[in-house]
């Protein structure tokens, strides 16, 4: 009797749920194991203890990173916002050491910069990770990933002289990702190559605390700071960070006397309000003076903003005109070429000093850092 009992719906559903969950959990379990392997790989990278002044032990094994204004509080094995710092037994280590994901020879104009050694080529070095999370990041594959998970090359300081001399280069630029998150590596490269006359230029979002910034100022000759918006709400929406520390960074660099250029990427519907742009230009004029070049860059649909259209050319040109109206001497348009806004003009006589198409210099009318027509000094690092 019992043997012939007909299976009930409950029995049937129970069995299906049992077997079904087994089938579904199998691939997930495998994937999970895969993830464990990936973490094991992270242990293989060179763990470099960062200087004690850049972090603080809070209690037990908890540490607080002091490099950027996020002040990440990390428990044992905790990883910072930037994805490069990890807490091992109460000591903060960086995984961004000797393992760049990009090494390429680029014109320095790529930073972008218009007044720093125009026409020179540099060795660009970038390590994965970034402390900001910009919605439109053009290098998000590198910047929003842990360095040890990227396809990298081993590039310790000892290899720098060889790499530079092979291409006859004298400049190292740090670009594409965020140099702040691999500053220990930059400092190591800089200290090693100091005696060999190597120059360093940094492109950064400037979201960094004063102490570490001073160390970077100590080794770098030029800074290109991306000022992503000029009001805190927009800045937070676009980057998940705050505006004030970036403005402080701009002021600190200016005070230090290092060469400074500012970039503003104009993103439609986010930071393209002309009032805000005018305020930003006025602030720059008042606080860093008219001679700091300002680049207005065109946004192209990228990363999480793939469905947002490119910046209208007219918007870019309006911003360019506002910059000049306000009194800034050197305003540029980037990501659009050929365009009159790519060129450098003498603010006194209007002569075209440097004519550019893309990253190429077509014509250079500067004579020893002076206008070839009126002879006035044009600020910048020209040689």
């Amino acid at each position, binding site marked *: 009797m019992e043997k012939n009992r007909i299976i009930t719906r409950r029995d049937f559903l129970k069995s299906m749920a049992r*077997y079904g969950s087994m089938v579904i959990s199998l*691939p997930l379990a495998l994937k999970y194991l895969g993830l464990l392997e990936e973490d094991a790989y992270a242990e293989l990278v060179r763990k470099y203890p960062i200087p004690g002044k850049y972090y603080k032990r809070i209690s037990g094994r908890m540490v607080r990173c002091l490099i950027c204004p996020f002040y990440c509080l990390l428990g044992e094995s905790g990883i910072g916002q930037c994805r490069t710092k990890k807490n091992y037994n109460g000591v903060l280590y960086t995984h961004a050491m000797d393992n760049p994901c990009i090494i*390429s020879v680029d014109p320095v104009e790529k930073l972008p910069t218009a007044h720093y050694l125009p026409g020179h080529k540099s060795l660009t070095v970038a390590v994965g990770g970034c402390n900001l999370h910009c919605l439109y990041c053009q290098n998000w594959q590198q910047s929003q990933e842990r360095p040890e998970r990227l*396809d990298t090359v081993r590039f310790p300081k000892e290899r720098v002289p060889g790499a530079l001399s092979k291409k006859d280069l004298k400049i190292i630029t740090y670009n594409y990702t965020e140099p702040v998150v691999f500053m220990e590596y930059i400092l190591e490269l800089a200290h090693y190559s100091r005696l060999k006359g190597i120059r360093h230029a940094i492109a950064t979002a400037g979201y960094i605390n004063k102490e570490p910034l001073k160390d970077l100022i100590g080794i770098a000759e030029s800074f290109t700071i991306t000022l992503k918006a000029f009001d805190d709400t927009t800045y937070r929406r676009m980057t998940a960070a705050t505006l004030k520390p970036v403005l402080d960074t701009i002021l600190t660099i200016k005070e230090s006397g290092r060469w400074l250029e500012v970039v503003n990427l104009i993103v439609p519907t986010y930071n393209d309000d002309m009032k805000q742009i005018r305020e930003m230009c006025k602030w720059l004029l008042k606080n860093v003076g008219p001679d700091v070049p300002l680049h207005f860059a065109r946004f192209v649909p990228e990363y999480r903003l793939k469905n947002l259209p490119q910046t209208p050319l007219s*918007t870019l040109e309006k911003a360019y005109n506002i910059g000049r109206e306000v009194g800034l001497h050197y305003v540029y348009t980037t990501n659009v070429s050929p365009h009159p806004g790519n060129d450098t003009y003498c603010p006194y006589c209007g002569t075209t000093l440097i004519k550019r198409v893309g990253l190429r210099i077509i014509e250079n009318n500067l004579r020893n850092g002076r206008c070839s027509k009126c002879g006035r000094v044009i600020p910048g690092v020209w040689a």
Partner: protein
Amino acid sequence: MGVKLSRRLSINLFFAIGFFEQIAQISAFRQVFVNFKGSELSFGLVLGVWLLFMGAGTLIAPRIRKCRLASPFMLAGLVFLLALSVPVTVHLFRVVRVLMGKGSGEVIPLLSLSVSTIIILAPLCLLLGLLHSTSLLYDEKKLNLGSARAYLLDATGSLFAGALFSFLLVELFNPIGVVLLASAYLTFSVLLVLRKHVFPLVIVLTACLIVLVAIPLSPHLEKESQEAKWQIFTPGMSLVEVLQSRYGEIAVTKWRDQYNFYLDSQLQKSYPDDYPAASRINAALIQHPHPRSLLMLGGSIGQSLNEIKRYRLERIDFVELDPQLIDTVARYVPTPEVKNLEFHFIDARRFVKKTEKRYDVIIIDMPAPLTRNANRFYTLEFFGELKRILNPGGTVALGIQVDIDPQRENLFLSASIVKTLKRVFHNVLALPTEGFIFASDARLVSDWKVLYERYRRLTEGTEPTKFFQAECFSLIYQEGPVERTNRKILAYAEKREVRINTDATPSTIGYMFGVWSSLLGEKESILYRFIDSIRFWHFAVLSFLVLLFCVGARIRGVGRGKTAAVYSAIMCLGVFGLTVEISVLHALQSAFGFVYLYVGIFNAAFMGGLALGSIWALNHKEWQTEGLLTCVFVALLILGLAAVAVKWMAVLGDSLLIIACILNLTAGACVGAAFRFALATRKDAASSAGRLYGADLIGATLGALLIGSAASITLGLVASFAASAIILVSSALSLLLFSGKPGKGGRL
């Protein structure tokens, strides 16, 4: 007279329910399709959720009977709710972004999108399921039409709605207008049936009046709904217009002096298209030393044409699939006059296949291969067709973002296309800056100085445009990035795990999903990682488990063994039905790309088959397990035929449409008949119906989600059919081994 009238009204009621259900399903399907950027993943998701929740609604029916709720009140209440909830559901799909807190133009995560789709669709499907069962119960008590006839009428209504929607309604009405019309028809039909019940009549009459008032307002409601959607999508931008094309939804927005064109919520082009268009067209044309003829498959018609003029080409053919898109663009963007330019509004693949002309340069500028419709322009078959129409030394420029970035999917996507191109052409060159992959049997040039000279020679004597100069080639063909990219992509293209992209096995779609998921971090990519982890052997394991389940049941008793075999067969046939239904839609997208318009017909064909099969089996009740076994074997045969049709879809051409309808109809018939046969094997048919339906639904949902959505993308269509077949084989074995000898132990 009165009886006759009641009968006619009941016939109309079930027809109207079928009609309404189908219109609701098509409307939901189209909205989800647009939200999913036109991805076929939406097919499986919508049908899976639809079946699961509608089934759940239907299964609540016995409880309703117990609660004595199967009254006219219940029917009226459900119709009231449904008539109003379908337009609301359409609107909810449009504004769902607001729940995700995403900013202007921000990409929506795949997982959140899927979850929100389920949340929005579930209540509607549940109500529809309840309506279905309530109307059947009402029929049982008052109308006496019989469930079999009701089932047939429902399916006929679905079939009619599918055809009417695709051929007429979509042209005459906006999406909200169509669902309001269907609501009006349903409420009116129920109104007639409930004419003798005062209070229920008032409820339905209210719904009917609301809907009737809303119909003339539907253009306004549609406009408001679309504006709400685009205000959430791109706040601040003004929505200029939204058009329903046969391939998807075209939207035009305006920001400052710039017009932006979206297809299925994905940005396609912005005009004025100044710099990007200028550098792209020059980067592509310059790869040929003496271009005389050009074929453009898709692309922009603004600045590109101004640049093309400088090359003094003898013949330019511009092929655009959707005339509506060009018409729309032309309304807002001045189109330059170009000598020798001819527009062709025809499917680009069809044009390439039919044309007798030959070209020096072919530029393909289609959307990225996230969908099968777009993937058709990145496949091995298509590249072979292109080669046929190239002059000796001709060049193909395939527009696609080239990435050598560390994320596996980005790199694999580029490597897969390069690998596929390498199968057809001797030389391949990737250009990361402009997003092109060039292919030719002649030598391709990456040295910008050579191209600089070539450009000057080719455009000598013509006036340069504002947006391009010869020096720009130094930027476009940057030595370092070009060299690095090609080295890496070619190395990856050699790897075995990088798959060739074909019509039937679209490897790039899977990689594109990976790219989409990787945009939003690890947590959001769980769904993709799950889909990506699906392998063919998983289905073999599933099949084995089905067999194991039956063996286990058999060990516990002969009766249990027989029962398990029947239930498993129904479940496996559920998997089969949805595999065929969804895979056929995938195949049609690969071949023609206009499922957005005709989805109703193919769904209705399946529904029609379901009803026909069910009715046919009713007349052959004595077949029982033999009938069930026959259905399983017929299903295997259908899967075999479907695999052959998919494999040869390029050869089949337009006849694939008819084959698709026949496949859907027969698959539906097979599932419908099997259900009746399974029911006939049961002694307690009335109480077993619910359980069998449950098994069918579990199978159908698994088939829709696991095979129809996931496996058909990661494994390809043929492998999906094979996966379904392998599951069916285990059910056939179970039936053969445990269901008793034919003719003797048929009834369990």
